[in-house]
């Protein structure tokens, strides 16, 4: 599974992109985030408040219950701010 991190999620995790093999019981976005949190203090800090984390699976916005698999591209980023007025 390919993971991408943007904006402050990249700064906090210290990772822009990585290839991971999560445990077999990680089947959806929610369980993926829960597993990522256990991978180190940077991940725990980045994923502490999930209300400010957005997830895309294969470049479409995803919800916590959406499925993820080994061939998916999963991106983690803050709510978009490109055009904040």
């Amino acid at each position, binding site marked *: 599974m390919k993971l991408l991190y943007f*904006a402050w999620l990249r700064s906090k995790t210290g990772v822009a992109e990585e290839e991971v093999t999560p445990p077999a019981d990680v089947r959806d976005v929610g369980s993926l985030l829960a597993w990522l949190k256990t991978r180190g203090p940077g991940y725990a800090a980045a994923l502490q408040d999930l209300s400010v984390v957005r997830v895309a699976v294969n470049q479409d916005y995803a919800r916590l219950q959406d499925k993820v698999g080994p061939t998916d591209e999963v991106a983690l980023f803050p709510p*978009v701010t*490109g055009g904040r007025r």
Partner: protein
Amino acid sequence: MIRVQREDFDLGDELKALATTRGRIGGIVSFIGLVRDFAGDAPIQAMTLEHYPGMTERQLQAIDAEAHSRWPLDATLIVHRYGRMTPGEQIVLVIAASAHRDAAFDACRFLIDWLKTKAPFWKLEEGSEGSQWVEAKSSDDQAAVRWAKR
């Protein structure tokens, strides 16, 4: 049509390109977003727009298609820049052209409101106390809610 690019754009050039290819357009509405020199009360020197290449194009195309399904449009164009920009620079261009002005005005407003909430761009502002990622603002979501299907 959509474009994501680092380079600046020219409204005049884009309008000429539209006009030479279409004969039935009765009205064109355009919107240009610029970099401001303040964020809240604090002055900013520059900002960097980061985006998610691939997803950005995909989301902009979906927003563009949605506008075409809602209004009788003859042409639309979204040009969005990324990278480092200073106050006064152009960030985003939206053009909507239709046989009638109502559709052009409504579609232009719809496109800019929706892309602000759906296109994956993040703003890093450079001020006197260093750089800071901008947090999302609920008024952007409210602007988009206006266009939610009833």
